[in-house]
């Protein structure tokens, strides 16, 4: 009858469905992961899975300890974060507070361009070109090491860190800067004492998102980290990460091995969820002080 009311109803419900689809997607993913991975834990206890030092999924009897993979992911991601965070923080501050006019625009689009490089291209370059240099510089037997992968991952996480952080810094109200400057603060004192504290939660979130990006990245580490499931002694050893394990082994994995990969997926899911929830918390945290 009432055309407007019907239209209103239809639009409202259509939007509701669209919103629900993505949530349902997440729930389904979670359900299947738990079902497949869960049956794995009936065969191998969780503690043995998490702390086992050997990942020999195809030997007899097979051993499913993901400690080397966890450490691999940790060392590669950790190295990437150590490199990317200082660079990202400084880069974001420079772009947001110091650079002016065309230099600023040039840097911003340059950073975005990094994001446009397909990760397989970066991984390929990293394995073939950067790997050779790393082997040379440090006198190693192989250039495919945790360090190589860290360098590449840092490079990949930079655009995320810089662009989110730059937004956070730019969003600091101009009047804070004015009031500090009017009290005689130098540009650096203004940035350090006023702008950065005001932007702190957004900056922390940017770092967390960068970390999330680095943990989840697969192609680059699969190509450049050497894929050796051993517990690394240093950052210059080849490692295998959680993500790369799933990607490289899923083709031939059957039976328990396939289920073990699902279990790895659960672990990854849990880690990235934790990182994202932390980032979310940092973004929405009410500034107390």
């Amino acid at each position, binding site marked *: 009858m009432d055309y407007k009311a019907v239209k209103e109803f239809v639009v409202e419900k259509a939007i509701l469905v669209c919103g629900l689809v993505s949530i349902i997607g997440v729930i389904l993913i979670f359900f299947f992961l738990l079902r497949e991975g869960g049956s794995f834990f009936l065969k191998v206890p969780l503690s043995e899975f998490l702390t086992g030092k050997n990942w020999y999924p195809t030997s007899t009897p097979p051993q499913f300890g993901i400690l080397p993979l966890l450490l691999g992911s940790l060392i590669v991601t950790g190295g990437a974060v150590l490199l990317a965070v200082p660079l990202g923080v400084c880069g974001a501050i420079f772009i947001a507070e110091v650079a*002016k*006019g065309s230099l600023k625009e040039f840097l911003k689009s340059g950073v975005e361009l990094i994001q446009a490089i397909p990760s397989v291209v970066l991984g390929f370059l990293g394995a073939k070109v950067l790997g050779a240099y790393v082997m040379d510089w440090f006198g190693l037997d192989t250039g495919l090491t945790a360090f190589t992968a860290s360098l590449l991952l840092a490079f990949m996480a930079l655009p995320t860190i810089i662009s989110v952080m730059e937004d956070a810094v730019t969003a600091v*109200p101009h*009047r*804070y800067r*004015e*009031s*500090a*400057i*009017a*009290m*005689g*603060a*130098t540009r650096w*004192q203004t940035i350090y*004492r*006023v702008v950065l*504290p*005001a932007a702190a939660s957004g900056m922390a979130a940017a770092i967390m998102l960068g970390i999330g990006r680095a943990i989840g990245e697969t192609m680059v580490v699969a190509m450049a980290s050497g894929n050796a499931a051993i517990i690394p002694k240093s950052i210059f050893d080849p490692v295998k990460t959680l993500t790369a394990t799933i990607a490289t082994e899923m083709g031939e994995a059957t039976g328990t091995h396939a289920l073990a990969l699902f279990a790895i997926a659960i672990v990854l899911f849990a880690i990235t969820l934790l990182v994202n929830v932390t980032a979310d918390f940092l973004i929405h945290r009410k*500034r*107390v*002080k």
Partner: protein
Amino acid sequence: MVETRIVIKNLTVSFEEDSYCLKDVNLSILTNEILGIIGPAGSGKTTFLRTLNRLNDLYPDFKMEGQVLLDGKDVYCGWNKNKLRKNVGMVFAMPNPLPMSIYDNIAYGPRMAGIKKRKKLDELVEESLHSAYLFDEVKDRLDKPALKLSGGQQQRLCIARTLAVEPEVILFDEPCSGLDPISTAKIEEAMAKLKEEYTLVLVTNNTKQAARVCDRTAFFLMGELVELDDTDTIFTVPKDKRTEDYITGRFG
């Protein structure tokens, strides 16, 4: 003996080619006076004020000619600009406390100047709050966020913060524009007291406020200084027809 604190000579300011914000302004600001600056929107009042502490430098297109002398030294080449801004404090139209505690807001300037001793900082904070007529209202919650204060309290906090840097001159850019009459009265009371020690320049859109608190008042129109005289004279027997029209509300 009346001393001159700031001398402005042939000041012309522009932000775009062929268009002026201020045109050939000449005036002197006397020590321990409150100089009022009135005029309609767009007459260059705020630009004038921000020229005195070099805050216009933040705009890349800012261009100026002429001279501004503080204590006989050129503000644009004789003074270090950070030192200048410590000497010439500013209170903005919108209260703009920093997102930190009340105490830290006031201690910010002194800390920047290198004062670290807690006792000295405590003294400065208390003294500044007293002078800004705010101490009694906030003495029990100095560690609370400044942004939780009311607008009027925030503005007095901004005055206290400016005082803590121990300036000679304080610029007020429509400090009461967002405040209720009672808060306004408190700020005016503070200003009347402050002029004993400081030199104040007050830009205001409220002509009555200028009449209440200023010793001398300048009327700006379209970037030009039309008239400057004792406040009583300006408001009773202005020499220029345009001044009279403005203060009687016939245009503006």
